[in-house]
């Protein structure tokens, strides 16, 4: 039996197809247009796994864009899916810190289940999107940005909270000759402390796993570890935990139903474009 998890984030679409282990995984390129083409990503994942769409026993959609995925059997929030995905990779993890494009989350887990969570999604400040915008402005990759910030001798405070104005502030600071690494270090610290204090509301417990694209930014990882006082766990592909969790949850659902001899509730299964706005 094959199970698919599709995690439609604000900037990336991730799909995992698995039976007992992962058969194929696809991370759609950045760009919001792409969310619209979730079905194309799915087709790509299917061909990678070398199976047909009908061979999927169950499809679970999660993430910011999960709402109207016509080819999913079920929608589950990214919070539950991240928890499941992370604990399948790191059974010792008790806390997940996920800094995604549209929000930042803290999740407490026990036995693969969510026991508590907090979330910020008011505005881009404090989310991965903030970093992306700055990275674009500086013509850097998120990864490079992290590397660079580690060389900072003296952090510089960014006075603007608004991402757009912070971008401007940073660009002109650089023009004024402020070392880029110091600016980035200040930036990472600011975001890390926003996320840390939010997550601390649930009383962060070891081990802590960091997920989302931002986990690839060593600068952010370090800034967060400095605040935590211990190292965090990072999956080889921190973007995929949500999709993995979704696939596993689908699998569990099906197995449970089969054990009970109940019918499996399925969706319409139309392999069409996903929509955000109905």
């Amino acid at each position, binding site marked *: 039996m094959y199970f698919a998890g599709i995690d439609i984030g604000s*900037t990336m679409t991730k799909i995992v197809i698995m039976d007992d282990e992962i058969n194929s995984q696809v991370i759609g390129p950045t760009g919001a247009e792409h969310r619209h083409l979730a079905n194309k990503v799915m087709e790509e994942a299917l061909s990678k796994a070398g199976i047909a769409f009908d061979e999927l026993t169950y499809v679970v959609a999660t993430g910011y864009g999960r709402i109207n995925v016509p080819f999913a059997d079920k929608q589950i929030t990214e919070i539950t899916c991240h928890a499941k995905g992370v604990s399948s990779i790191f059974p010792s993890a008790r806390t997940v810190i996920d800094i995604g494009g549209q929000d930042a989350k803290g999740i407490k887990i026990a036995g693969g289940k969510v026991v508590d969570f907090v979330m910020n999604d*008011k*505005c881009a400040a404090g989310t991965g999107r903030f970093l992306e915008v700055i990275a674009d402005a500086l013509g850097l990759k998120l990864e490079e940005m992290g590397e660079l910030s580690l060389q900072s001798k003296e952090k510089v405070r960014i006075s603007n909270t608004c*991402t757009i104005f912070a971008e401007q502030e940073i660009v*002109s600071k650089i023009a004024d000759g402020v070392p880029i690494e110091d600016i980035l270090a200040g930036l990472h610290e600011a975001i890390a402390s926003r996320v840390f204090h939010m997550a601390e509301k649930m009383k962060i417990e070891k081990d802590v796993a960091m997920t989302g694209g931002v986990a690839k930014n060593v600068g952010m990882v370090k800034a967060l570890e400095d605040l935590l006082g211990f190292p965090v766990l990072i999956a080889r592909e921190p973007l995929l935990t949500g999709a993995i969790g979704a696939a596993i949850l689908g699998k569990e659902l099906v197995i449970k139903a089969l054990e009970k001899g109940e019918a499996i509730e399925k969706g319409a299964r139309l392999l069409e474009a996903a929509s955000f706005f109905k």
Partner: protein
Amino acid sequence: MSWFAGIDIGSVNTKVALFRDGGPPHFHMIQSGANYRVAAEKALDEALGKAGLSRNDIVAIMATGSGAPRVDFGTDQLSDISCSARGVHSFFPSVRTVIDVGGQASRAIRVNDEGRAINFAVSERCAAGSGRFLQIIARVLQIDIKDAGTLSLKSSNPIIYTTGCAVFGESEAISRVAEGTPKEDILAGVQNAIASKIANLIDRVGMEKDCAMVGGGALDIGLVKRTEERLGITLLVPENPQLMAAFGAALYAREVIPTNSKFDITHREA
């Protein structure tokens, strides 16, 4: 010749106005880019070049705009609130309320019969309340801000953004485009969002007619129309709304600096 210069070093564009008694003003505008000082120098020299003038023809320069305090440029500096008010008033002496939709913030300014700012309110430091939001969305839609207006007027059902953040608004607009929502509805949505913020600012300072709209945002006739609808009045819009602060600055340069004096015009004395 005794010319006076006003330079408005804004977050997005730097604008220059050259002015002399009895003659028509010359205007010039360039992008500010990252370095305000460089932008200021460049904008001034290009403006002078266009007008066939040299720096020696300038008696005084008044610098204004959010970038001005960061570069020690001009004979003197004045807040863009005063300058916008003064500039508009010189075009429309009947104006008592000015709406200035700039790249950094939106402002509502009450002016007296002499064109002095007598009361003002400024939007909070969030791009969603400024003209910047419009530019971002216009960029997403790959249209010029000038055409944005005409296009948006076609809108029959403006979208309502699910977020108050310009950055998320951008992603939302992108997805909307991808899903085939008409451009005009996406634009009209932003205009409504900004118009309602403007209405709040107006409420704070109190409205007295006539009312004018200036700043880059006023180039968007769609925003002008929706603000008019929101306020239930007609707005006066000068020909070059984005240049009013620069022009006002030039007028102030004329006023505050004695014509006979001659001194270093690119640097204020410490």
